[in-house]
């Protein structure tokens, strides 16, 4: 890799609540986004159809301008493997997602792009939705080392437990989230494994 690995430990910012379960990647970036040969323009496609049809969509709401966290429901990012979805999210300025759960391919795509997609309990997410809606100016501090989300609410500090698969957390904390360098390091061993596979030798 030519770019320096970037360790991702703590993210601070305001949050946009997206109260819906099973938000699929067709909705995050409609198929028309995939007609672009690169990801450069993806930010413009983020929830494009939903924002057009619903003027009250949170991403149309000026009070969430500049937010860097997306709070989402259950099974976010289901469906298509399109990387345009996390690309649009990160290019629109979001640095992390906090949700009840994430679809497998989407979560993997987020991680290789260095976007933490962390989970929290149903109750914690409900609390976050309410907080982000009531007080959009609230600042949240997401810490991957301590696996906590802290913010000020009702005059005191709230501290919620967050989680993410350990290998993904380690990858983000150590800056090896784009696994390419790690994969390249084992080139000789890759050749060995390949040579031992029956179908790589026409079943000799």
């Amino acid at each position, binding site marked *: 890799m030519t770019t320096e690995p970037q360790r991702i430990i703590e993210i601070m910012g305001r949050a946009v609540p997206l109260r*819906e379960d099973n938000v699929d990647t067709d909705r995050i970036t409609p198929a028309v986004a995939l007609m672009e040969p690169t990801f450069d323009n993806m930010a413009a496609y983020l929830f494009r*159809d939903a924002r057009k049809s619903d003027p009250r969509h949170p991403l149309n709401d000026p009070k969430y301008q500049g937010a860097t966290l997306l709070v989402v429901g259950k099974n976010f990012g289901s469906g298509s493997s399109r990387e345009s979805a996390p690309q649009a999210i990160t290019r629109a300025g979001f640095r992390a997602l906090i949700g009840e759960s994430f679809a497998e391919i989407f979560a993997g795509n987020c991680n290789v792009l260095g976007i933490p997609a962390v989970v929290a309990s149903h109750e914690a997410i409900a609390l976050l939705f309410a907080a982000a809606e009531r007080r959009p100016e609230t600042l949240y501090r997401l810490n991957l080392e301590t696996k906590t989300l802290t913010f000020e609410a009702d005059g005191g500090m709230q501290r919620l437990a967050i989680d993410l*698969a350990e290998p993904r957390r*380690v990858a983000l904390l150590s800056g090896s989230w784009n696994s390419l360098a790690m994969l390249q390091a084992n080139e000789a061993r890759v050749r060995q494994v390949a040579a031992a596979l029956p179908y790589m030798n026409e079943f000799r």
Partner: protein
Amino acid sequence: MSHGTLYDKVWERHKVATLPTGQDQIFIGLHLIHEVTSPAAFGMLREEGRHVAFPQRTFATTDHIIPTTSARRPFADPQAEGLLAVLEESVAANGIEFFGLDSGSQGIVHVIGPELGLSQPGMTIACGDSHTSTHGAFGAIAMGIGTTQIRHVLETQTLALDRLKVRRLDVNGELRPGVTAKDVILAIINRLGVGGGKGYAYEYGGSAVERMDMEARLTLCNMSIEGGALNGYVNPDEVTFAYLRGRRYAPRGAAFERAVAYWRSVASDSTATYDDRVRFDAAILEPMVTWGINPGQSVGVTQRLPEIAALAEEERRGAEAAYRHMKLRPGDPILGTPIDVAFIGSCTNGRITDLRAAAAVFKGRKVAAGVTVLVVPGSQAVNRQAEEEGLPEVFRAAGAEWRGPGCSMCLGMNPDKLVGEQICASSSNRNFIGRQGSPRGRTLLMSPAMAAAAAVTGKITDVRTLEREPS
């Protein structure tokens, strides 16, 4: 943790190393690419002066953006033309075999991999497309990946992966006439949920699965991802071996016999242990139809749409949104729901057996007034086979349009799109909002025969109640 399953065996065989992060580095035996998700990966490679590590293990085709009325170049849509041109340059520059429009072998990537004999038991298979789970039908670990991961495979032929748990799904008993693999998988997703498979590979087995032919198994595994499972597979057996024998990229002669020995060896042991096990009774299933905006929102064709209050609390909000989008009402029967369009095709149901099932319904009947019907073969090979059997004449005589191979109306990346609020009886895999190309378009998922029955009656109809030989 599972033990002795096909998943465990194939994983161990392909494991290169445990990475410092704790993930496993897995060798990818077969990498399939298409024009939509790979051009950006080739772009990254080119920018950094890298090359493809195992070009002979990657195969390319084109499917998503192909116009099905005429695939003549250049395409009318410059973006579509651009994507295909980048793919063509990239495969040529990297020595990758390409099944292009003039190859006679082009088609939907999940249709051609199997029919060319590229997809085989005991392999790891990756493709920048979530429906790669399809290839698990051979007894492979097959998964959809993103574009950055495509680059990883191109450069290293490996991926950094998390080992999944294995859930065994036993489908025992005999499917009733008119009930297909599509109905089985829709029923599974309905019961376990669209997120229920998260963290699992699905192993499909039981007498109903053992009796399925390869094409039915491909349909079953295809929609694993719609149930949240990254991989779905069927253990290889005589049906698998018979299907592979004689295919272009399958081993030949004595090598075939040695291959069968390997293929048998990777099947799950009778003593295998699973992380979870769920049983389904095949005999009680009926044709399924989705009514909502995710593939789990479905009912048997004789059922009524669920009342909000009858649903689990966590599903109610989603159901309300689905009813609003679909303009359907809780408590109504799904039977009789009028349709505007019928689509028969896709990586789920665009194979020859699917077209035969649809043709059996269209034969001697006419498409209902005001309904548009697209029948789209999954590949050029399926197209040729259908022509040999005289199926296009059946479709045309009924008033359906017989198109060229491609992804067509599954996903709104080519000229085949719903318009406005059109409602479509579709043999594809996703009923997401906007999926078929119109933000207000509506999709009802079902089997090809059910979509054909809807086409000839103009409304959702139980295909089992159509008279066998219309006059």
